């Protein structure tokens, strides 16, 4: 007995089996009719699309299970478009599968590598034509060209400089100052401590100096959340406690992680949750991060009341609000 291992052999392409439609004229006719019906259904779909566009009113809605309130015209336009395209496709595929040749054919592949002679010719050509430029010898040209090509990309880069102004102190500053009135958003009215019940939350924006327009850019730094707790629920040091007013505590609403609005307040646990990445802040402990990716507490705004009893800022924020940036000095929070 020999040690030669015998392996299974490639039996080659299996014999072609004819389809029904290849041998039975009746089946062939049937397949033809199927294809034709599919194409005609597509035509009907186009008619439906045009009819829906012209004859159905745009403002008619209906309630459909699962889909909910649905615009009837859009629905029928969609169904028409679906039919007109889908059935062309199904018709063509049915045609291919049932009636077009289904005998597999074999094509040879070629290796991609060029013939040895061609490769040698190529190198010779490269040497002859490329060499005639003398790049190999002329190192002065080579180096100066390197410098030129290296620098040419700088112009477009420099030209992009004016895509925006420099940030300057934008990220460090906001509109809050000592005595700035807290205005309810979006009403724009000042607010008194008595307007907030225990457990209530309100979004406020700073009253801007006359003539200053409120912009989204500023709101992105100025938005503040007011929350009223029972004073005994706080777990704050004396300074931070003095920043609250009758159980009302104010925090920047802009998440210190990635700048989303921290808007989910859980009344029972006194937790503030950011809906973007679930950073969770404990309101009773000056918005300390108790869960999630945020690395810093929400900055607390010191508040008090003015002579008329309206809530105002006692002082500006002591740290920049919002997400981190390179220039931010975070050593003091």
């Amino acid at each position: 007995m020999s040690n030669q291992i015998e392996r299974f052999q490639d039996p080659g392409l299996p014999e072609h089996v004819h389809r029904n439609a290849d041998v039975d004229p009746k089946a062939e006719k049937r397949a033809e009719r199927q294809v034709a019906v599919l194409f005609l259904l597509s035509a009907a779909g186009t008619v439906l699309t045009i009819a829906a566009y012209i004859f159905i009113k745009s403002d008619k809605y209906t309630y459909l299970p699962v889909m909910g309130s649905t615009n009837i015209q859009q629905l029928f336009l969609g169904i028409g478009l679906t039919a007109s395209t889908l059935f062309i496709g199904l018709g063509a595929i049915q045609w291919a599968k049932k009636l077009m040749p289904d005998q597999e054919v074999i094509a040879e592949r070629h290796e991609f590598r060029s013939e040895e002679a061609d490769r040698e010719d190529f190198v010779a050509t490269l040497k002859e034509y490329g060499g005639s430029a003398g790049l190999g010898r002329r190192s002065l040209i080579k180096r100066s060209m390197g410098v030129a090509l290296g620098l040419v990309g700088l112009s477009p880069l420099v030209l992009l400089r004016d895509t925006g102004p420099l940030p300057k102190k934008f990220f460090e500053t906001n509109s809050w100052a000592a005595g700035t009135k807290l205005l309810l958003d979006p009403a724009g009215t000042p607010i008194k401590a008595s307007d907030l019940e225990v457990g209530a939350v309100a979004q406020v924006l700073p009253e801007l100096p006359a003539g200053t327009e409120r912009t989204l850019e500023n709101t992105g730094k100025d938005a503040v959340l007011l929350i009223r707790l029972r004073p005994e629920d706080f777990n704050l040091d004396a300074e931070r406690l003095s920043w609250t007013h009758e159980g009302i505590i104010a925090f920047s609403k802009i998440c210190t992680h990635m700048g989303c609005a921290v808007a989910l307040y859980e009344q029972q646990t006194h937790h503030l949750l950011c809906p973007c990445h679930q950073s969770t802040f404990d309101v009773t402990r000056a918005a300390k991060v108790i869960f999630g990716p945020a690395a810093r507490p929400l900055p607390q705004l010191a508040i008090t009341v003015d002579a008329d009893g309206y809530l105002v800022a006692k002082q500006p924020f002591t740290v920049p609000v919002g997400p981190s940036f390179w220039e931010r000095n975070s050593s003091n929070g």
Partner: protein
Amino acid sequence: MKKSVKVAGATANYVDERTGAAKWLKKNLTKVFPDHWSFMLGEIALYSFVILLLTGTFLTFWFDPSQREVVYNGSYLPLSGVHMSAAYDSTLHLSFDVRGGLLMRQIHHWAALIFMSAIVAHLFRVFFTGAFRKPREFNWLIGVGLLTFGIVEGFLGYSLPDDLLSGTGIRIAEAILQAIPVVGSYLSFFAFGGAFPGTAFIPRIFIVHVLLLPGLFLALITIHLMLVWYQKHTQYPGPGRTEKNVVGYPLMPVYMAKAGGFFFVVFGVTAFLGAVASINPIWLYGPYTPGQISAGSQPDWYMGWLDGLVRAAPPLETHAFGHTISWNILIPGLIIPGILFTGMALYPFIESWITGDKREHHLLDRPRNAPNRTALGVTSITFILVSLVNGGNDIIATHFHLTINGIMWFTRVGLFVLPPIAFVVTKRICLSLQRADRDLVLHGKETGRLVMMPNGEMLEVHEPLSDAKKWTLTQHQLPEALPAPLPPSATVGLKGKIRARLNRANAVQIPAATLTDLKELGDGHH
């Protein structure tokens, strides 16, 4: 001769006399393509790209890419009188006051999801069957590029309406820019033309979304397809299929009908989704303002895994010398995706370095026959899936009555623990499937028919496999199909040792059944 035939002949003659097209067409109209359902995945991506171009062009006729503030007075009454950007206003107009506008918006969005899903499914097919091997590495790189640009394109697209949800996404993108050390705040100001959100951003991403990236897609897809054409398609192993041939159906007429028909099928299915399945109902979110947000803010799925990684990051920041570095943003937002995509792009070269295999491959691997590759693929998918789950942790928590904290901790641990487990399990499953193949070839198929022998012994009848099936299950281990062992010179030094170790791990295979095995079994059989 019929008149139509005459006209066609004259036209063909006119064109050929000016281009010589007949010679090229004669050869290429009969080009052979192998048939397999998994080869349609890339086609779906191509067709949804065409659908995106068509529906996207329609949308540009009404969409106003501007952040100019306007007051809404269209037919959607709940937003009457609300201040908003022209971009949001025109998207509402498209949705409520343009006939077919909402349908086109929804088809466009569904097509984008299908485009990305098809790219990823196609990527899986190419990876798990080893279709990226020589000579197809260029096409792999182009594919990785298309996937990356696709993610960006999709993100920019759903950001254009400037609604509360998309604005929140842009806010997060801005925070990533802002977190880049040294230049972050400058990059943010340059990108947004000043402070976020500003008025420059929507017009800028609009031109990137409708011109720059689609142009790039067109160029890359063209090269991708030209290479497929020139290199000829890979094929699955089977009787009659070799490394030197391609077995299938000719382009004319079979594939013209099938592929052309399939375009319309993809269009039809996408149109159906657009007709009946509401997607991104921006009128419910309201216009963007940085002070507000909606609960359950979710990106589209192809961004969801990134968001999940960001959510899972621990609260790490470095504060030193008056500067802040946000590792909680940089690691999940830039570093991990960078490593993943670089690794993916380099994989064909890494595998070829490990195996020392420099030959052309046109026959695809069955995934079980490349256990390490398959296991690595499943490992990566596991990592992404765990991230994706965390990207929807708020939704999952409310639907399945779990705590967000629980899901987050599952993710934080799972990201490290589950991928290695997936590797080991997948590799074992692959080897077991190889064993099953071996048994199948040697013992045949179980028929479920029980026979009682004269002595009372009960036997199940096994039916031998066809020669074609036997060949398909064993062809991958022919000596000429296996890579040569690494030369000793390649395994010197630390790099060489690592290479040798990986090479050995990669060589673990269950020996395929041979005719000799079968004969020996037959001799001993009673």
